[in-house]
């Protein structure tokens, strides 16, 4: 915290105060000459009556009845989320359908919410040393910061744009390896955007 100014530090006054120079002027948008209209007595009375204003107000409200509505009527209408929206995770598979994950624990280490639990074992395939036997991810604990996918050297864990996933218990929301791989099958065609 040493780089922050101490509380006693005060912002020095601008130069023009110290140098007693004239205060700088800024360009203001050009407006037309300001007309000050002095209302006649009848107009004053008319304004005080408020009735025309009230009718105008109510009419403005009524015109909104047939104007465009902004509500997205989920689930009939699904809102298009931005390409780098971060939601439920997926575990990527390689071309042979095996999980890309090599159980290096980097995502688990990077996770600030401690929501990833990996159990590694010796891989049954010759091209890698380890693979995850279990890969549990607590979707309720996760804060969707995206650190895991940044940490992953194999691009194995990624966040998808699926935001409508629910469960009836807390245990249900702890996704295991199979479920995370299923999500990959669901979103296989979705091209992962370059995020950072």
């Amino acid at each position, binding site marked *: 915290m040493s780089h922050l100014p101490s509380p006693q530090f005060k912002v020095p006054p601008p130069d023009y105060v110290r140098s007693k120079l004239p205060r700088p002027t800024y360009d203001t948008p050009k407006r037309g000459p300001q007309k000050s209209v002095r209302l006649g007595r009848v107009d004053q009375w008319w304004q005080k009556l408020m*009735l025309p204003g*009230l009718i105008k*107000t*109510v009419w*403005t*409200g*009524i015109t*909104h*009845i*047939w*104007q*465009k*509505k*902004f*509500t997205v*009527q989920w689930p009939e209408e699904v809102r298009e989320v931005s390409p780098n929206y971060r939601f439920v995770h997926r575990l990527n598979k390689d071309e042979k359908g095996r999980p890309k994950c090599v159980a290096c624990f980097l995502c688990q280490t990077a996770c600030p919410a401690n929501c990833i639990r990996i159990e590694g074992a010796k891989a049954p395939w010759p091209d890698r040393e380890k693979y995850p036997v279990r890969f549990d991810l607590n979707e309720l604990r996760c804060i969707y910061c995206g650190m895991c996918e940044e940490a992953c050297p194999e691009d194995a864990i990624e966040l998808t744009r699926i935001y409508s996933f629910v469960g009836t218990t807390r245990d249900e929301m702890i996704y295991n390896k199979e479920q995370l791989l299923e999500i990959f099958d669901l979103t296989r065609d979705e091209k992962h955007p370059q995020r950072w």
Partner: protein
Amino acid sequence: MMTDILIAVIRVLIVFGIINLMAGLLLWSERRISGLMQDRWGPNRVGPMGLMQPLADTIKLIFKEDITPRNVDKLLYYIAPAMTLVPAILAFSIVPFGDPIEIDGRRVLMQVAGLGDSNLELGILFFIAVASLEIYGIIFGAWASNNKYSLLGGIRSAAQMLSYELFLGASIIGVIMLTGSLRLVDIVQQQNDHLLFGFLPAWNIFRQPLGFLVFCVAAFAETNRMPFDLPESEQELVGGYHTEYSSMKFVMFFIAEYAAVFTLSALIATIFLGGYGWPGLTSDLVGPTWLPIIQALTFMFKTLLVCFVFIAVRWTVSRFRYDQVMRLGWKVMLPIAFLNILLTGALMPLFR
């Protein structure tokens, strides 16, 4: 005699049902229209276009816990919701929704009040009397709740309604002078039997524009709706007089509000907009069978139109401050109402 009573009971049941139905419909349309006016779609999930929403709300509220807070005045606390609901519905009893019809040689009035052939001579006076009863429900609720915010709302409501009732009555006097009768059937028939200047229907909105204006303002104040909803200003007083109420008691306050809106809309439509008739709409034109149906539909149409204005005003106009309400009432509206009486007296030969 028994038949007369039976007919009266049937009329009461029909009108009571319609008012409750309309309260629900208004609840829905209020939420729908306010949504549309705020560029969103209001409730549209329950039933077609969300029309079952009031039903769902009511079921939800029935199953909520009915809490009676400690230290409330039990008796007043329990009767307050009824005290607001009853006058709102009772005031509707004088509103006619059709010309008297003949069934088996028996003349049947198309309104609740009045037994057999005898119409209620009080007419509008009855409405003014009943409308002032509505204060009691709010004050009882506010006082019994043992809550300072409720009490503040109740005090405001009392001051507001007392001062606005004054010119609510004064604004109709012009109409009564023109018609020469307190009965609403006479008022409606007189509005539709001739044309003004050959093209305008002789509705009281054209003959009594000032009276119409004052009556509308008073009606907004009477129903405690938006420009004048000081008693329940959510931002300052939590909920005003119904803060401490829950479950069905709260529903009753709610229904009372919408019933009052419907009743006052019906009265505005009847007194100022020609009621159930159109100029030229007579039994000769459409036949005796269709006339009551067309008249009832006309009445409904005009009432709902006024209801729409009520809702539109509520969701656009901002609330008055307390002193502004009082100033508007005593310094602006009351003189206008009296001026209207004087003008009507002076110009009566012209409009007769």
